[in-house]
C-alpha cells in the first residue's frame, strides 16, 4: 500500500469531508499558543528588555558610583584628581511631569562642560548639543528629545517635585542619541536646583581605560571612596530591577502556559475523537498491508502539521493579544516595580521559536497517546466499537489510586521551600493536583451519571436519563471534556480566590494603615520607584493650620540592597497619636515597637523585604548611607502590600543623621477630634498654595489604592478569560464531534419515535451535565490550587501574607457564565443532531 494512498484515506479524505474538526484542533492550538506568545511578547516589551529610564544619555561606561540618598558631589572632584585616566560623568537623575500632557519623563542633569571633553564631546555633538555652554548658567534651559514635538526656543512647563516652572527648550536631541524616548536633559546645576538635591549627585558614571586590568581599576577607585559609597558595573540598577522583574515575568509566563495546558486537553480530546472516528479507515488500511508504524507516523505527521499551522497562526494572533496586554503589563510594572516605558512589540526569532516549540510540542504530546492507540487497531477490530470504553471502566480504581498518590505528592511538594527564588515546588504541587483531578474525573463522571440517572429522569424526563447514561457510557471522551473544562475553571477559580483574598487583605490592611485624615504628595506620577519631594516648610505651614493636630513626614529613597532594589524610608514617630498605622508579624503593639525604633539605629522591614532577603526580627542589616555604612537592628517586620521591592523603615531622626536632606516625600495630616474635614482641607490647601501638591482624603486614597490593585491584576483576568475561551470553544467542538459520532444512535432514536425536540433536549442536557460536572470538579480543584497560590506560590515569589477569603460574587458570576456558555455551546450541535436524516445515518455504516 502506497504512502500516498494511506495518507489520503486516513488524513486527507476525512479532512476534506469534515473540515470543522480540523478547524477546531487548529483553534485550540492557535489560541492556547497565542496566549503564550502574547505574554512572552508583551512581557518582553513591558519588562523583559527593561532598561532603567535613568540610563538615558549614559553612553558607554564601565562603572558607576551610587549611594543611598545620593553621592556627595565632592566625590566627583576627588575622583577627577586621582592619577588615573578615567572619564567621569556625574549625573542628577529624577523625573519631571510635562504639565501639558501629564506625562512623566526622566529628567537627567549632566555636566555639560565636562561632557564636552574627548569622546564625550562627540556624543554631545551627535545629540545636537553643539553649543550648550552658551546657556550654561541659565537655570531654565532644557534639551529635549525630538519626539516631544517641541521647537527650539519654545517654553515647556515642567512639574518637578512640588514646583511647576516654565523652562525653555534650548536644543533638540535627535533619537539617534539614545536619550531614551522623551527624557529631558539639563545642565547639572540647573537640575540640582530644580530637584533640590544640593550637594549631591545621583550617580557618577566612570569609563576606565582599555589598557590594564579592569579589576585593578576597580580596586584603585574603590580605595579612594568612603565606605558608604557603592562602586558597581554600570547599569546595576537596571540589573537589579531586571532581577526583580524576572520573578514577575516568570509567574506571568506560567499563567500563560495554563492557557496552553487547557488547549492541550482539547487537542488530546479532538485527536482522540478523530482517531475513534477513523477506526474503520485504520482497520481498512491495516488490512491492506499498512504497518503499525506507518499508521503511527501518519497520525503523528498529521498532528505535526496541525501543530505547525496552529503555531504559525498563533504568531499574528499572539501579536494582536500582546498589543492589548502590553498596556496592562506596563501599568503593573510602573505601579508595582519601577518606572519604565514599554518598548515596541516585535515578533522575534525567539517568539517564532517559542510559538513553534510550545505549539508543536503540546500538539505532539497530546497526539501521542491517540496515535499509538490508532496504530494498535487490529484490522479485524476495525469495525468494532466500545472496547476502549470498557477498558476505561475497569481501570477506574487504578486511576483513583494514582490520583491519590499524586495528591499526596502534591501536598508534600507544597511544603517545600522555593528553589533559586522561584516557587518551583509550588508549581509542581499545582501540576500534581491538576493531574490527580484529571485522573479522578472519570470516576466522578461515572459515579454521578450512575447515581444521578434516576434523579435526572424524575427531574427532566427520559431524555435526561438517556443523556446521563450516554455520558457515563462514553466515559473516556466525556471525562476528557469535563477534565479540560474543569481545569480551565479551576484555574479561573483559584486565581479568582487568590486575587479576591489579596484584595480583601489589602482593604483590611489599608483600613489599619491609613490612619491619617489627609495625605499630601507632589502632583506628578506615582510609580513605585519615584519619590518626588515636598519643600520642608510645607509641613510646618500645615501644622499651624487650625484643626490640624499633627503632621507626619515620610521620606523615601530608592536604594539597592544586596543586588535588589528596595525603598528606604524615614517616618516621624508620634507615640501619642491615637492610632498607629503599622501592624507587625509578631503581633506586638505598634507603640512599643515604634518607641524602640525612635531610640536609635533600629529599623523595621516590610514583609516582602524580609522574605526576599531572608531577614527576621533581631537580625542586623548594614546600609550604605551617605558616606558611612551604619548597621541597624531589625526590630520587627510589618505587613505591607503596597510595594513589592520592600521597605526598610527608620525613624526620621535616625535617617536625618545619615541623609540630612529634610524634604519629605509624603505628608499625613491628623485632624483634631471634632475638626471638620472639608473646611480643614480647604485651609490646608490655602496653606500650601505655591506648591503643586495633591491633597487626598483618607477615602480617596483608599479608592486609589484599590484602583491600582485592580489595574495590576487586569492582566491576570485577561489571561483567565483566554483560558476559558479556549475551553468553551473546545467544548462546542467536542460536543459537535460527539453528535457526529452518535449519528447512528440518534437515527435509531428517531426510528423508535424520538422527536426532534427530544433529540435537542438530549444534546443540551448532555452539554449542561458536562458544564455542571466541570464546574463542580473545577471548583474543588480551584479551591486546592488557590491554597497553593496563596500560601506557596505567592508567598515564595512576592512574600505577601494573604488572608484567605471567598470572593463569593466573583465566583458565582463567573461560574454561572461558564455554565451558560457551555450550554449555549451545545446549541449548534443539537441543531445538527435534529437535522440528521435518520435513514441515511442508520445505513451509513
Amino acid at each position, binding site marked *: 500500500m502506497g504512502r500516498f494512498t494511506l495518507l489520503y484515506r486516513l488524513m486527507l479524505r476525512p479532512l476534506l469531508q469534515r473540515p470543522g474538526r480540523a478547524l477546531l484542533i487548529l483553534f485550540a492550538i492557535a489560541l492556547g499558543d497565542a496566549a503564550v506568545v502574547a505574554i512572552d511578547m508583551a512581557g518582553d516589551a513591558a519588562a523583559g528588555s527593561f532598561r532603567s529610564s535613568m540610563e538615558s544619555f549614559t553612553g558607554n561606561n564601565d562603572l558607576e558610583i551610587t549611594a543611598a540618598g545620593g553621592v556627595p558631589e565632592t566625590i566627583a572632584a576627588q575622583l577627577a584628581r586621582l*592619577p588615573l*585616566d578615567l572619564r567621569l560623568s556625574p549625573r542628577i537623575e529624577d523625573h519631571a511631569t510635562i504639565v501639558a500632557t501629564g506625562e512623566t519623563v526622566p529628567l537627567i542633569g549632566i*555636566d555639560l*562642560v*565636562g561632557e564636552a*571633553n574627548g569622546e564625550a564631546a562627540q556624543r554631545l555633538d551627535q545629540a545636537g548639543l553643539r553649543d550648550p555652554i552658551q546657556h*550654561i*548658567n541659565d537655570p531654565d534651559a532644557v534639551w529635549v528629545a525630538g519626539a516631544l514635538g517641541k521647537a527650539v526656543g519654545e517654553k515647556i512647563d515642567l512639574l518637578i517635585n512640588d514646583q511647576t516652572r516654565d523652562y525653555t527648550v534650548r536644543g533638540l536631541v535627535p533619537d539617534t542619541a539614545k536619550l531614551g524616548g522623551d527624557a529631558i536633559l539639563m545642565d*547639572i*546645576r540647573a537640575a540640582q536646583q530644580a530637584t533640590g538635591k544640593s550637594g549631591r549627585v545621583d550617580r557618577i558614571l566612570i569609563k576606565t581605560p582599555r589598557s590594564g586590568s579592569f579589576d585593578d581599576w576597580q580596586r584603585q577607585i574603590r580605595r579612594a571612596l568612603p565606605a558608604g559609597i557603592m562602586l558597581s558595573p554600570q547599569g546595576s540598577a537596571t540589573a537589579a530591577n531586571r532581577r526583580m522583574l524576572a520573578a514577575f515575568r516568570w509567574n506571568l509566563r506560567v499563567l500563560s502556559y495554563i492557557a496552553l495546558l487547557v488547549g492541550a486537553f482539547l487537542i488530546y480530546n479532538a485527536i482522540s475523537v478523530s482517531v475513534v472516528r477513523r477506526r474503520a479507515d485504520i482497520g481498512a488500511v491495516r488490512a491492506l498491508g499498512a504497518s503499525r508504524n506507518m499508521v503511527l507516523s501518519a497520525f503523528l505527521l498529521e498532528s505535526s502539521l496541525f501543530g505547525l499551522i496552529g503555531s504559525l497562526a498563533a504568531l499574528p494572533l499572539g501579536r494582536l493579544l500582546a498589543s492589548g496586554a502590553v498596556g496592562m503589563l506596563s501599568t503593573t510594572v510602573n505601579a508595582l516595580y519601577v518606572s519604565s516605558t514599554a518598548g515596541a512589540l516585535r515578533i522575534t526569532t525567539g517568539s517564532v521559536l517559542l510559538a513553534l516549540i510550545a505549539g508543536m510540542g503540546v500538539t505532539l504530546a497530546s497526539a501521542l497517546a491517540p496515535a499509538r492507540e490508532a496504530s494498535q487497531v487490529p484490522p479485524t477490530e476495525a469495525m468494532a466499537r466500545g472496547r476502549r470504553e470498557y477498558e476505561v471502566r475497569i481501570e477506574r480504581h487504578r486511576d483513583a489510586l494514582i490520583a491519590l498518590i499524586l495528591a499526596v505528592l502534591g501536598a508534600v511538594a507544597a511544603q517545600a521551600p522555593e528553589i533559586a527564588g522561584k516557587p518551583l515546588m509550588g508549581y509542581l504541587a499545582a501540576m500534581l493536583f491538576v493531574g490527580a483531578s484529571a485522573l479522578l474525573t472519570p470516576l466522578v463522571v461515572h459515579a454521578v451519571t450512575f447515581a444521578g440517572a434516576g434523579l435526572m429522569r424524575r427531574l427532566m424526563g427520559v431524555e435526561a436519563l438517556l443523556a446521563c447514561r450516554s455520558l457515563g457510557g462514553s466515559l473516556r471522551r466525556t471525562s476528557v471534556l469535563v477534565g479540560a473544562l474543569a481545569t480551565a475553571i479551576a484555574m479561573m477559580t483559584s486565581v479568582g480566590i487568590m486575587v479576591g483574598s489579596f484584595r480583601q487583605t489589602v482593604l483590611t490592611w489599608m483600613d489599619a494603615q491609613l490612619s491619617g485624615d489627609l495625605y499630601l504628595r507632589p502632583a506628578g506620577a506615582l510609580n513605585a520607584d519615584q519619590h518626588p519631594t515636598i519643600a520642608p516648610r510645607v509641613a510646618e505651614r500645615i501644622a499651624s493650620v487650625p484643626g490640624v493636630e499633627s503632621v507626619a513626614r515620610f521620606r523615601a529613597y530608592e536604594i539597592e540592597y544586596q543586588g535588589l532594589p528596595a525603598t528606604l524610608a524615614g517616618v516621624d514617630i508620634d507615640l501619642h497619636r491615637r492610632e498607629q498605622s503599622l501592624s507587625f508579624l509578631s503581633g506586638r503593639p505598634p507603640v512599643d515597637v515604634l518607641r524602640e525604633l525612635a531610640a536609635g539605629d533600629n529599623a523595621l522591614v516590610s514583609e516582602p523585604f524580609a522574605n526576599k532577603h531572608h531577614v527576621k526580627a533581631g537580625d542586623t542589616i548594614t546600609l550604605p548611607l551617605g558616606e558611612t555604612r551604619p548597621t541597624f537592628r531589625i526590630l520587627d517586620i510589618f505587613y505591607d502590600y503596597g510595594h513589592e521591592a520592600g521597605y526598610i523603615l527608620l525613624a526620621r531622626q535616625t535617617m536625618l543623621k545619615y541623609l540630612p536632606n529634610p524634604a519629605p516625600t509624603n505628608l499625613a495630616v491628623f485632624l483634631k477630634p471634632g475638626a471638620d474635614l472639608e473646611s480643614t482641607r480647604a485651609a490646608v490647601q490655602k496653606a500650601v498654595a505655591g506648591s503643586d501638591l495633591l491633597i487626598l482624603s483618607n477615602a480617596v486614597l483608599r479608592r486609589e489604592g484599590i484602583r491600582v490593585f485592580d489595574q495590576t491584576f487586569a492582566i491576570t483576568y485577561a489571561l483567565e478569560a483566554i483560558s476559558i475561551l479556549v475551553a468553551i470553544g473546545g467544548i462546542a467542538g467536542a460536543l459537535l464531534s460527539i453528535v457526529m459520532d452518535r449519528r447512528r444512535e440518534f437515527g435509531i432514536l428517531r426510528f423508535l419515535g424520538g422527536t426532534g425536540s427530544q433529540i435537542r433536549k438530549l444534546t443540551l442536557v448532555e452539554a449542561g451535565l458536562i458544564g455542571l460536572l466541570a464546574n463542580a470538579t473545577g471548583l474543588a480543584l480551584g479551591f486546592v490550587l488557590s491554597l497553593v497560590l496563596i500560601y506557596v506560590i505567592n508567598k515564595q515569589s512576592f512574600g505577601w501574607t494573604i488572608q484567605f477569603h471567598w470572593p463569593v460574587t466573583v465566583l458565582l458570576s463567573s461560574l454561572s457564565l461558564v455554565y451558560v456558555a457551555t450550554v449555549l455551546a451545545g446549541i449548534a450541535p443539537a441543531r445538527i443532531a435534529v437535522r440528521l436524516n435518520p435513514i441515511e445515518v442508520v445505513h451509513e455504516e
Partner: protein
Amino acid sequence: MKSKWIALLLLVPLCAPAQTTYQSAQPGYRYEFPRDHFNHEGYQTEWWYYTGNLSSSDGHRFGFELTFFRQGVSREPSTNPWFVSDLWMAHLALSDLTGQKFYHEERLNRSGPGLAGVDEPSAQIWNGNWQGLIRPGEHDLSAVASSFQINLKLIPAKPPVIHGQNGISQKAEGAGHASHYISLTRLQTSGIITLNGKPYTVDGASWMDHEFFTGSMADTESGWDWLSIQLEDNSELMLYRLRHRDGTLDPYFSGTFIDPQGRATFLPLRDFTMTPAGDNWTSPRTKATYPERWHISIPKLSLDLDVTTPLREQELVATYGPSYWEGSVNISAKRAGAALHGLGYLEMTGYASPGQSVLPR
C-alpha cells in the same frame, strides 16, 4: 603666548559686558610673589603655561607642554558650586623627539565641587588630574593622559621676569589692549615621563608663562608667532610677532632678553627681526601650512639665530576653537661670530583658520 584665544572664541557670546565686571591690565601694576603666581579673578582671562625640553640619561629627547587656562564667565554670586563662574581649559602635549611622535590632549571643566581651579593656600593649580604645585622654590607638575604621564619637579633658577614696559605687555594700539605677563625663564627640571607604560627618568629646562588680562584683542589681528629660547650660555629670549589679516605685521610686537644673571631687557620692534625661512609643513589634518624654520636677528645684542624643529608634526588639533602648532625647537645661534646652541619652544597660531579674530599677546 598661548592659544588662550581659543577659550575666548568659545565664550564670546557669554561675556558681553566684560569691561563693566572685570578690570583691565593697566600700567604701573605692582607685582608681588608668590601672590601673583596664583589666580586674578578680577581679570577675565588668565593662563599658566609650562613648556620644556627634557632628555633621559640614555639620550631620549622629549618636549612637553602643560597649560591651564581660565576664562571668567560670570561674576554673579552663587552658592551652588556647579554654577559656572569660570571655565577651565587645559592642554597637555608630549613630543617624543627621539621616537618622532607627538601626543596631545585637551580638557575643559567648570570649577564645580573642585574639578578645576587655582587655590593659593594650598599652592595648587589643577584641571582634573593635571596639576601643578607652585611653591616658592619648586613647582611640581603631574598629569595623566591616555598614553603618557608626566611627573616633574621644576626649580626656578632665576627670579620672575615681567615682560613689556611699566608692568604691561601691549598687544595692540590703545589702552586696555595689554596684559600682565610674567615668565620664569629657566626652571631646572627633573622627573619621570612614562610613555606607553615605559618610564624615562629625565632632566632638562622648562619655561613658565603666566598672563592675565581682560579682553585685549584687536579684531584686525589674525594670529601670532611666539618663541621662547634657552641658550647654553644661560641667557634666554622671548619674542613674538603679530600678523594682521591683510598679511602685514602689527607694530606692537616685542621681546625680552634675559641675561645669565636674570636681568631682563625689553626688545621693541625696532631692535629685532623675526622672519620665516621656509621648511613649510602642511598639516594633513587641518591643511594649515606652518613655516617651521625661522631666522632671527638682534643687531643690538650681535645675535643671529636659526630656529629649526626636530619633529615636524607638533600641531595641537583642538575640538574647541582653531588648532595651532606648538613644539620643541633647536636653536643654532651666532653671537659676534661665535657659535652658540640652545633649545626652545615655538608657537604658531592662526594658520589653521585664518580670518578668525584672535587675541594678540
